[in-house]
């Protein structure tokens, strides 16, 4: 009878010993992506496996978790769980999540599957393979968690199609395309380290605690279920950076450059989370500024202190971001409010109580720079002229966000940067985005900027309405426009029996 293996032996055989020696083939041809980024790996056996899981244990463990998760989804649906949310405005945060974030889980699945093939070290390959499967499970479970809302609310039905086409969704989409088009090591610093380790708490925690504060038990349960996976992803992110820095000192400046780039790219992307926290959650968790201080300045500050012994310094532009934390949520929600005709979710003027909460949370900036915008919006709405801005905005070539950010030494003035490459002028929202372009212009000249694509006639038309309904597949009058008077609002009132 075969001897039963102990856990340690089983782990060794099912991970490290899966690899083989290349006796008659050139090893570098088997791993063609490993060298071109300039990263030097001297000894893959120094890789510490962060997961310590074998594949059979992974399946068993995840199957148990998902059985419980789907039992709760079932109960949620049977009991009309959507009626327990704090306010129908909340569901718009889910629309943004499903169209903007869930498809990134799918891109992460593809990205980790790719690097999980390309690394020469078997430990790293197995870890990336498992994270890849996690990401695929996450996109599936998110779709299933939110699908119940799709039966009762507008704006959720074409999330995947919209992710590929809608103007503001080119921001998250191009972020991940940028990471996946990089080499495997940059991808790991971009997604594994900068995003999963440094910034993930600013994405995941706000959405999941936002769900908890607003009575959305389906999303909360998904959050709990994903938490143990997220903890493993963070461990992988940290292992990657320590491994690269310990392998060779020549790796240090390359890694620093990637940290600078991806920290900036990540914070620009998190602008939508900032806006979600400050404006879209009817029951607030904390302000974006508070979240930034807890999850980046305190936790991230300690991390970078720890990395200082390798010669790694705080990400470039951290000083700008420290100032921007008092501004970006307001600038972003104003952008969506004024483009509410072209958004796949509803927008609204904050209530008087919410405006006062914002003044209290942002004493240095809200009353001076942002309250006047809402006073003007209210005045126009009262006249029956709800403000939807005309025309199409100028976009940043790198992050693809409209040029809505302002100068931090003069927050009333839009921040303009430009650069001429090969006779062609390019525009940027910030020094961060400018510098990323200048470092690799041949990559970012290819940005698929939605506004320019519309002008080239590649998105249907000719009118904005045709583009929204035919090319983006928005149900005009249902998915877009103000919360006030929307079908979502009408149905909610009927369910609740209020006039």
């Amino acid at each position, binding site marked *: 009878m075969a001897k039963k293996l102990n856990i340690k032996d089983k782990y060794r055989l099912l991970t490290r010993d899966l690899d083989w020696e290349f006796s008659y083939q050139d090893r570098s041809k088997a791993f*063609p*992506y490993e060298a*071109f*980024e*300039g990263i030097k790996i001297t000894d893959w056996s120094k890789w510490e496996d962060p997961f310590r899981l074998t594949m059979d244990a992974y399946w068993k463990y995840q199957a148990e978790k998902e059985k419980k998760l789907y039992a709760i989804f079932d109960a949620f649906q049977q009991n009309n769980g959507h009626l327990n949310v704090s306010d129908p405005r909340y569901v718009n945060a889910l629309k943004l999540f499903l169209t903007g974030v869930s498809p990134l889980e799918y891109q992460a699945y593809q990205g980790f599957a790719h690097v999980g093939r390309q690394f020469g070290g078997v430990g790293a390959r197995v870890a990336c393979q498992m994270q890849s499967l996690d990401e695929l499970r996450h996109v599936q479970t998110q779709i299933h968690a939110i699908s119940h809302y799709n039966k009762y609310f507008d704006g959720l039905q074409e999330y995947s199609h919209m992710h590929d086409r809608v103007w503001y969704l080119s921001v998250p989409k191009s972020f991940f395309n940028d990471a996946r088009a*990089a*080499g495997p090591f*940059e991808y790991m610093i971009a997604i594994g380290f900068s995003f999963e380790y440094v910034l993930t708490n600013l994405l995941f925690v706000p959405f999941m605690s936002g769900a908890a504060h607003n009575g959305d038990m389906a999303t909360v349960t998904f959050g709990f279920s994903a938490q143990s996976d997220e903890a493993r992803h963070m461990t992988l992110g940290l292992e990657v950076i320590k491994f690269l820095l310990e392998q060779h000192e020549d790796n240090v400046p390359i890694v620093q450059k990637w940290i600078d780039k991806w920290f900036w790219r990540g914070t620009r992307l998190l602008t939508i989370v900032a806006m979600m926290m400050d404006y879209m959650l009817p029951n607030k968790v904390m302000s974006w500024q508070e979240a930034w201080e807890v999850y980046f300045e305190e936790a991230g500050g300690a991390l970078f202190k720890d990395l200082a012994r390798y010669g790694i310094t705080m990400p470039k532009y951290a000083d700008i971001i420290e100032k921007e934390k008092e501004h970006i949520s307001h*600038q972003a929600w*104003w*952008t969506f409010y*004024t*483009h509410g005709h072209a958004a796949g979710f509803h927008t609204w003027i904050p209530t008087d109580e919410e405006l006062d909460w914002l003044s209290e949370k942002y004493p240095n900036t809200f009353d*001076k*720079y942002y309250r*006047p*915008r809402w*006073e*003007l919006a209210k005045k126009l709405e009262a006249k029956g002229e709800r*403000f939807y*801005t*005309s*025309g*199409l*905005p*100028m*976009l940043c070539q790198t992050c693809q966000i*409209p*040029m*809505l950010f*302002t100068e931090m030494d003069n927050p*009333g*003035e*839009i921040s*303009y940067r*430009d650069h001429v490459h*090969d006779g*062609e*002028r*390019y*525009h940027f929202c910030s020094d961060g985005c400018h510098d990323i372009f200048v470092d*690799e*212009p*041949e*990559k*970012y*000249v*290819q*940005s*698929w*900027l939605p*506004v*320019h*694509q519309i*002008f*080239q*006639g590649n998105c249907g038309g000719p009118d904005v309405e045709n583009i929204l309904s035919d090319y983006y597949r928005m149900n005009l009058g249902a998915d877009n426009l103000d919360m006030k008077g929307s079908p979502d609002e009408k149905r909610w009132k009927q369910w609740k029996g209020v006039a």
Partner: protein
Amino acid sequence: MPVQAITDNYTGQVMDAKANFGGNLIIYFGWDEHLMFCAPKAFPLPPQMTFGDVIDQIMPQAFGQHPEFKDIDWDKAQWTLNREAVSPARDQSLEALGVDHKSCFRLRTPGLTGYKGTGV
């Protein structure tokens, strides 16, 4: 290095080359101290368009929704083109003004500083 690529001498396709816009130039307009408009706006315009037509036809489309728009004295308006101060005449064409593809105009209107003077 223009890009970190696995292929030697990799070059990217310029997605927004002038040739892709059917003879128009993409031109951006921003109105300083009027953040009712969250960002500058983009327009595809023919290079032969005169600056007078820009003021009469394009400016209302871009900024006509602002309560101060009707108060603008265009003779006193201050312009920059790609960060350089310019004083365009109404009969000058965009081309003659030195406007090229993806040029950016910024407008300042002395005395008009946004809704109730707040820069909005």
